[in-house]
């Protein structure tokens, strides 16, 4: 029987596993979570009692259906599941994995990467302080732990998550001081129209949440700095769309500019990348079904930011493509429907990208003292100092200036770094290149790396 390894147990990975299991394969699913669900449908630990409706809102039924499906497959022994486990890298068709059992190696014939997405971050002066988080973190804290990240929280950035997190936090009783969106209303109107044409219900739901935020919400803002003392943030300094200055007292800030695909393993698996102007990020190259090169298939937000519904569809499609390539006969009727649904998700996502753009201008105007690499405290000025020697190329700037060398491996600075390189060199961000991923893609103790066993 062919060995198919699925990395990630969010909506894409779960649907991919289901599709393979239905064809009679026993897929191996490796996931970092303690329980399957991914970030969007993340489940709290045992002993938590809030019902799905409280955790996932309008998506509760979808979340519950996915969780139930996966648990049933597990009980029936249809999948091999490695929770709390991270793939660190590949050696040919073998994945190196750390988890509760230590280091293991798992061989595979085909690889389905459903690695999801994370917050796309832009630096704001002061963002290195304790108490500044990503928007996703604010949502995870609430969903998986039932806590708010502070007593008076400023949410800032742009994208659907900004409004959603604000809505969820307020509903749960948190004190949200301001919701600061860098996207101007003009862009939101153009993108929003495209969103509404592709998915009217989802768009209407978002608009209703936005309306519920009332005067807390501000569009077209510019973030100047996060004022912080020894205890973390004490105020957000910002300007409104009419350039009037505001200071909003707070003790926590959550930042995010929509999402970026998690692609480190995709890179290590040898998949090519293309610059996406729409998404202002590098995205892996794959066909419409998620078929990349060399027996690798991609599904979900790790391939492009289509959201949870798109991820379910993409997971089925990628697994079907994998099955077809392995010589299995797959029903074509569902494939046509799924392809149409995915096309609709793409139209919607294009509207989202237009409505909530990457704040390139804000980044290009950051003061030299702004920390760009949050891991190692490297500033915009220090990045600029490397350019005469490094040239305008992200990997060389990383080598000389350590932007992207820190413990997050460039996940949270590489987009801003490329923007600054481009601004200083007078080139487009795409021309600044893409940081190459390096294994291990997660930290692992040297003792563990030395103790590698081979059970593949």
């Amino acid at each position, binding site marked *: 029987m062919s060995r198919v390894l699925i990395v990630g147990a969010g909506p894409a990975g779960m649907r991919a596993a289901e599709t393979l299991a239905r064809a009679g394969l026993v897929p191996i699913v490796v996931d970092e979570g303690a329980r399957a669900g991914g970030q969007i449908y993340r489940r*709290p630990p045992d002993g938590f009692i809030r019902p799905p409706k409280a955790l996932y809102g309008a998506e509760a039924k979808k979340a519950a259906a996915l969780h139930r499906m996966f648990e049933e497959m597990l009980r029936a022994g249809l999948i091999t599941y490695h929770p*709390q486990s991270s793939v660190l890298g590949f050696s040919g068709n073998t994945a190196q994995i750390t988890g509760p059992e230590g280091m293991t190696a798992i061989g595979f014939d085909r690889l389905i990467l459903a690695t999801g997405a994370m917050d796309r971050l832009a630096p704001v002066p002061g963002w290195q302080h304790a108490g500044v988080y990503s928007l*996703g973190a604010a949502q995870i804290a609430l969903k998986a732990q039932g*806590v708010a990240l502070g007593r008076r929280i400023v949410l800032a950035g742009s994208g659907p998550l900004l409004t959603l997190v604000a809505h969820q936090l307020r509903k749960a009783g*948190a004190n949200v001081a301001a919701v600061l969106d860098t996207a101007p209303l003009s862009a939101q109107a153009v993108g929003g129209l495209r969103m509404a044409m592709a998915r009217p219900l989802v768009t209407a739901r978002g608009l209703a949440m936005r309306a519920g935020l009332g005067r807390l919400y501000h569009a077209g803002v510019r973030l100047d700095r996060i004022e912080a003392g020894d205890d*973390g943030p004490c105020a957000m300094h910002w300007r409104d769309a009419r350039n009037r200055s505001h200071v909003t007292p707070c003790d926590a800030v959550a930042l995010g500019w929509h999402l970026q695909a998690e692609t480190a393993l995709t890179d290590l698996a040898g998949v090519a990348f293309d610059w996406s102007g729409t998404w202002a990020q590098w995205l892996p190259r794959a066909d419409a079904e998620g078929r990349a090169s060399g027996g690798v298939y991609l599904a979900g937000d790790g391939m492009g930011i289509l959201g949870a519904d798109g991820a379910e569809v993409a997971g089925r499609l990628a697994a079907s493509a994998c099955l077809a390539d392995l010589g299995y006969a797959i029903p074509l009727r569902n494939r046509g429907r799924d392809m149409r649904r995915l096309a609709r998700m793409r139209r919607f996502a294009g509207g989202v990208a237009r409505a909530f753009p990457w704040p390139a201008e804000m980044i290009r105007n950051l003061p030299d003292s702004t920390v760009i690499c949050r891991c190692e405290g490297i500033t915009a000025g220090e990045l600029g100092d490397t350019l005469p020697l490094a040239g305008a190329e992200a990997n060389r700037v990383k080598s000389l200036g350590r932007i992207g060398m820190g413990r997050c491996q460039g996940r949270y600075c590489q987009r801003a770094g490329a923007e600054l390189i481009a601004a200083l060199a007078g080139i487009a961000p795409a021309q600044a290149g893409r940081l190459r991923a390096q294994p291990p893609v997660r930290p692992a103790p040297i003792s563990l790396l030395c103790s590698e066993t081979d059970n593949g």
Partner: protein
Amino acid sequence: MSAAGSPGRLRRLAETGREPLSFHFDGVRLHALAGDTVLTGVLLSAGHLRKAEFGPERRAGFCLMGACQDCWIWQEDGPRLRACSTPLREGMRLLSGSPHYWPDPRS
């Protein structure tokens, strides 16, 4: 118990009916609930998890999903932990800085 009036950075909004447990952070005994992560447990009572290695500021995690690696903290004995993805256990002894047997890169 860590309630709404707790001195830490985080504020509990729900799920307060779980079993209590206790642990130590920098030698001080603190209380939390079973099911809390190390990050949640510490930050309900404290303002930070650790000092930054490369700057004067403190750190309290960032992404909470295992991507940023900002929240690794020490134990008095044993390996470092990623606080956002490690469940808190009864009796854990956690440290905001490196233990005595580990050289401090800043000194």
